[in-house]
């Protein structure tokens, strides 16, 4: 079994922890509980053979805001990144751009999957996929997700596993 570290990054309150909770435990909590520091969860992605099976170490990293910057040391040893933005908050795109540049600086061309979260509120979205062009992420690696409705969550994680297993 392969062990792979992946990091959940993004602005505060975009739903990183909810996405992990949905993916790992299949649970969603409506209430917003802000994360402080780091929480590491594990999830095994079964494959056709034991040798292809991957155990993800998911680092849920505190969101970026005026008080908190992303610590590059937390990214060390990552095989892939899940960058999350909130479709209902255009402002979450700005930190996403900064985060991308930190990732590029410290990890080079590592696989990144972009999750535009809160697709259950898509009618209130403040931006569209086209607005994320500046982040330089291929369309095939961008997912509209909802931790609440479990929309595309597993698909997005599996896409990252696919990218890091290549």
């Amino acid at each position: 079994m392969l062990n792979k570290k992946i990091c959940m990054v993004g602005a505060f309150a975009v739903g990183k922890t909810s996405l992990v909770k949905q993916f790992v435990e299949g649970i969603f909590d409506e209430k917003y509980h802000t994360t402080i520091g780091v929480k590491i969860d594990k999830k095994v992605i079964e494959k056709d053979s034991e040798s292809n099976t991957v155990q993800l170490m998911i680092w849920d990293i505190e969101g970026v805001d005026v008080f908190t910057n992303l610590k590059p040391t937390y990214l060390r040893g990552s095989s892939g990144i899940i960058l999350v933005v909130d479709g209902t908050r255009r402002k979450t795109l700005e930190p996403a751009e900064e985060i991308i540049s930190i990732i590029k600086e410290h990890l080079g061309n590592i696989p990144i999957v972009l999750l535009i979260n809160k697709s259950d509120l898509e009618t209130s979205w403040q931006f569209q996929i086209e607005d994320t062009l500046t982040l330089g992420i291929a369309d095939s690696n961008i997912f509209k997700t909802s931790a609440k409705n479990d929309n595309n969550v597993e698909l997005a994680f599996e896409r990252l596993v696919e990218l890091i297993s290549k």
Partner: protein
Amino acid sequence: MNNEIVVLKTILQQMGVAGFRLKDDGFFVPLFDLPEWFSQLYKNKFTVYPENDHYFLGVAFPFIENFLFDAEQVWSKVESDSLYSGLWTEELQDGTELYLEAEAINANGQAVLLFTNETTHFDVRHKVFQAARDLALKNEQLENTVQKHQRQLQQQLEGYCTQSTSFGELTKDIEKESSAVLICRQDGGVEVYNKALIDIYSLTNKFEMQKESLLEKWVKEAERIYPEIHRVLEVGEHWEGEFESTDNLNNKKWIRLMIAPIVDDQRNVVHYICIANDISESRISLSELERITQVDANTKLPNRRSFWTFLSDQIEQKRLVGGQLGLFYVDLDHFKQINDNLGPEQADFLLNTVATRLKRNLKKKDFVAHLGADEFAVITTDYRDNDCLKKIAERIVSGIYREVSFNEMTLNVSASVGIAIYPQHGNSARQVVKSADFAMYHAKEMGRNQYQLFGPNNITESIPKLHIEQGIRKAIKNQEFELVFQPQICIGEKDIYRAEALIRWNHPTLGTLKPNNFIPVAEESGLIIEIGRWVIDEACSALMLFSNNNLKVKIGINVSPKQFKFSNIANDIVEALSKYSVNPSQLELEVTESAFMEDMDDVIKQLQDVRKLGVSISLDDFGTGYSSLSYLKNLPADLLKIDRSFISELPDNKQSKTIVDSLINLAHELSIEVIAEGVENEQQLQYLKDLGCDYFQGYLFYYPLHSERLLELYQNLTKIDAS
């Protein structure tokens, strides 16, 4: 030594810390018995108990595995250093979450890794961040609403501007609009505006509105954070943003502004439509946050409100079930100077450092609060007797008393601590706090950087400020002040006697008051100028008395920094010297480091003027404030007076020894003589003599004496010398 190690281990254990040492073979071994929470957590990761006490910390904790890369850097350094990992979460088997932080320490070459369980304080920290982020989300929503409204309004106004040639109807339409509207020409000339604009900028009439181009003002204000604004507007593009603006009454406000240029057929800008909203309230207010969370936003400690709630609850509980509690009132020494001179950012940094030091030196169960400014409080219910409280106070004082490094300077920070006990020193929360405050004040009186347990004497030494201020005004007129003189001793031969003049206030009802009881109030109220003049006059009068008795005496007088700022000290001295026909070389000014903080060049110039008269200058309380060594060479000083706080710790305290040693050497290199104040025992004297200290002052020799008594003493000494 072994005993000290045992004590240290016990403290770390009580603090719930798991400590490891990295051995040469790459294994971590515990430094002392591991706390239960750690053993449980480790067992959760490895079912087998570690053999030979070898712990696989990197394997057990992926977070630590990552942190070890950074820790290695610290451990490989030559000098001692440390690094924090940041907070991370672990789960026990029953699902309980633990919030942990690791610290890699290079302790004189030993690689140490400490695990601290922050779970107890996590709630408080979490509450702050949760509240801050909830507020930020709400603010974002509000700003979005404003933005949407501004855009709709802009479209309406644009439509109007392109279709109409006059603004007659529009003026009426926008009058009641909640957003401020200004339509102006390219040169800023006002065409249309509404009441909301007048309100936001506190303008009283149209004339005020027109005398300055608001557009120009906005652009200037916005370009601090949006340097592109000029370019955007010049090319006739639409601009929007948020920035800090100042209204007509000089109040700061956060403004969300949208500027839309209206262009003609040739793409020339003919109007600007400006829409502004005051969004100050939607910005996160720190005070608001503190109110909601009951946590100090800077230090993240419980704030004053939270402290009162906790103390009252605890006292209520003790009242019902019995028991006692100890309250420590902690006040930083000289904080006002730091705040005034270094600025609020550095002051916040200092408070944060102190908060960390406080927490580190106390048990998890102890309640630590930041009451505001330089005041902290600690409540403990977990102690056996008063000796335990004293030990805790010692830990607080010595834990804080270390250097704090800023960008360009190093500062010695110290605190005075007052201890009061419920129910012994008060039956209510208010009374216990009052008692602790009295005791703290007493600790300040005793020379700072120490603790005092509340005692009945504390009360008489703390007098209401207003009472003092009113009294000072009468005191000079009623001749209630007097000078006493403490001799300064020279080991060896000198042809002149020396003494420091100290002011006392013979208060009609309160008895004799020492300077600490009234000088701070006098400084605050400005009365110090008058007192300062009186001291100069009185000292010269005493010098005349000594001269008339054929005694060569030099008297040092204390000068307040305010005297340099608000009076002409050289003139005051010249007048007094001439009035009493005193030789200027018999007078010395004692100036504290703080005098140089506000306008160093001006104070130096004034001191040079004084020195030209023949009066010598002594630097008082040296070493307590800023790291002054770098500018010592620039100061016009003849004598350097080492603060009593260093002397009191001689010869046992290594840090004080190093400071005193360095100060004496440096001063002598610069041909400045040195005096040690607060010399109270033979060991201190011997140590200072060995270092070549020039003068000594303290109770070991003489208490302060009245001028007649001093005259008598010098006359007797002269007789002895002669015989």
